[in-house]
């Protein structure tokens, strides 16, 4: 057996840290964190929508709307408020059937602020007979007059039934001509009314490229198209 032994390494030998290296490493880490933070901040700012916007939302509370449809409509509005619109965007909510009522007006930071309103005044509320979206559009135009410097998005939450097609088309034509109206979202329409909604009641908006219709299964797609439309306004 060899009499030679390998040199033994001691764990604590040479463990003294070089202060210069430690300082350099610290400076490097701080610089990296600062660069990463700045990049994240700039990216976040770049994703923001700079155009001043306002939202009007009309919920159809007629007897033809089921509770699930109303919940779907509320979920869509929450997504619009939460994901698309900048914080503190002026928002006005109406509910309508044969008549129209204003139920809420605020500048919410998050969609959670509208939960109580949605649950009490829309989901659990059953209105009278009749569906008059033209009245919502009229109220919307009055609302738009309050903020002449903003662009507007109208959300008409209905199953697509319309008792006044002629008046609705007239109001739609006005909105189509109004350059401040960026988009009009209609849904969740049932399949039976969808063709009429796109080609008849809101045809002027459709022709102007401002109409976004969603049904029972393509709400997120309509949301994505709306987002693209608003981002296009930035340019």
């Amino acid at each position: 057996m060899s009499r030679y032994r390998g040199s033994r390494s001691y764990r604590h030998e040479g463990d003294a840290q070089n202060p210069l290296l430690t300082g350099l490493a610290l400076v490097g880490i701080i610089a990296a964190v600062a660069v990463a933070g700045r990049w994240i901040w700039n990216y976040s700012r770049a994703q923001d929508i700079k155009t001043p916007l306002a939202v009007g939302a009309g919920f159809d509370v007629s007897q033809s709307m089921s509770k699930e449809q109303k919940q779907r409509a509320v979920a869509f509005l929450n997504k619009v408020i939460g994901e698309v619109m900048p914080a503190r965007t002026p928002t006005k909510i109406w509910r309508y059937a044969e008549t129209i009522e204003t139920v809420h007006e605020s500048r919410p930071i998050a969609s959670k602020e509208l939960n109580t309103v949605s649950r009490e005044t829309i989901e659990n509320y059953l209105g009278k007979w009749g569906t008059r979206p033209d009245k919502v559009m009229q109220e919307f135009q009055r609302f738009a007059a309050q903020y002449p410097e903003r662009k507007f998005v109208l959300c008409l939450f209905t199953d697509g039934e319309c008792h006044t097609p002629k008046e609705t088309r007239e109001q739609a034509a006005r909105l189509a001509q109004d350059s401040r109206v960026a988009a009009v979202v209609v849904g969740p329409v049932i399949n039976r009314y969808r063709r009429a909604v796109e080609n008849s009641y809101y045809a002027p908006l459709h022709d102007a490229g401002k109409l976004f219709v969603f049904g029972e299964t393509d709400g997120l797609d309509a949301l994505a198209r709306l987002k693209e439309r608003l981002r296009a306004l930035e340019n």
Partner: protein
Amino acid sequence: MEMERNEFDRVAAHLPTDEPETATPNAVEPQASLSPAAPPPSETNSTIAEATQRQVGEPPAVPSVDGVFAPSPLIEPYRDAAPFWHMPLEPGVFHETPLIVHSQLSDAERVVMLVESYLRKAGYEVQASELRMRYTHWVKIPATQYEQLRQELEPQRIECQREIHATDKAIEQAQTEFMQAMATARIPLPVPPPPKKRTKQPPAPEPISPLLVERALQADFAHEDEVCGEQGVAPVSSKGNVLVTVGQWLFEFFAPLAAGLLLGVNLGVITGLLSLEVLQRGEALWLVALAAVIGLFVEKLVGNTAYSLMSSAAMASEKREVVGATEPFPSMRSSVRTVFFMAIIALMTVAIATVDALGLHMLYQERQQEAQLEGGGGGEQVPLWVFFIAGLIISAPYIVYKAVKGWREPETRQREARITYLRWKHVDRRREEPAVQQAFAKAQEVANLHQRRETLIAELEHIERRLDSARTECVGSTQKFRDYWDGLIAWLRKEQAPYAHAPRYAPRRRGSNETLLQKLLGLFRR
């Protein structure tokens, strides 16, 4: 006039020619030309033989028919001078000083005196004095000084070399005795530490010293690998690996970062700062990053707290065998503290898991609401306990990992400390053995001899530097005199040229009392 002419011819026999090709290289060798009959006593046999050969081959230094002077019999210091500054030394060839010393000095002096006398008689008083002065300053004094220094230092140099030789022999003897002592003491030589820089050459052997014996004694003990099973420490292979270390660093950073990201998001969701909608917004990325950083710090804090608590619990669980003998060492065993620390760790783990579970559940509910837009959301709800399990999976492993590490590391350190203690005791016991002490003594003897040898070498180098310096000074001064001599002879030949062909009307005396009329007459005669 005739006498003066004859005297000039006699002197001219010793003057150099102005045509280099008439003088062979050997003919200008100073020692041979200055004293052909008697070689210098300082020359070695080889140089004497060479000098003799040169004398045979060279033509006699006589003036030619047309009055051209013979080659200079004076100094030529560079021919066989010690070439230590301008050419490599030839092995087996030894050079002696080329300078005019001893018997040559008398010849050179005789020639110089002859020329000086001629100059004085010819009326060149200034030149004669200058010749004498320069010869004294440039040749005589440096050569004398150099020879005196040689007389003084050469015996010292020889003595120094002899002592170095003797020390070398003593070192060999002491090294042999050292190895015998190491073998008697049964101390294995340690493997030298690997060099820091990778080189092709094998590392130099470690010098023999008491430090080597000390290192050998410490190395003469079981490896950690060999005692890891008995002493409960990890094998070396799993400790010193770079990949393991880097992986450990990455794990220590990314594990809490991943768990902390989810924890931070869940905390934000619970407190209402974040929601599924916000998480899906590009402009809220900074919020997510902020939540991740906060979560990272919280997770690290909880992990480090668990580590410290478990370390304390491990310490509190130790039981000393003889409490009385360890006073005033505190008694560490405390079941209450151990249980308390563990309960805190369990509480933190449950709290973290609860936060994760609730946050995930709220996100799940938001996702269910969102699913309504795609026609879904009506399926069976996932129960809350599933989210608790998810929360435990997210954060508990890191906390448990840190807690186990906190328990294990002090224990491992304690075992390593025990190994170190055993090694120290082993070395201490070995030091008491006479054979080991003899090995230390022999190592010190070798070290002393090495130190003495270095001192002698330094002394020898100092002597040789002094000799070289004096020799250089001597050679340089002689060369200066040679240049001066060549210039003087050239001037003298030029002065004597008219007398070689024209009749002499009057003696040419140029003393300091020469009148202006005499100078003009001289010029006019030319």
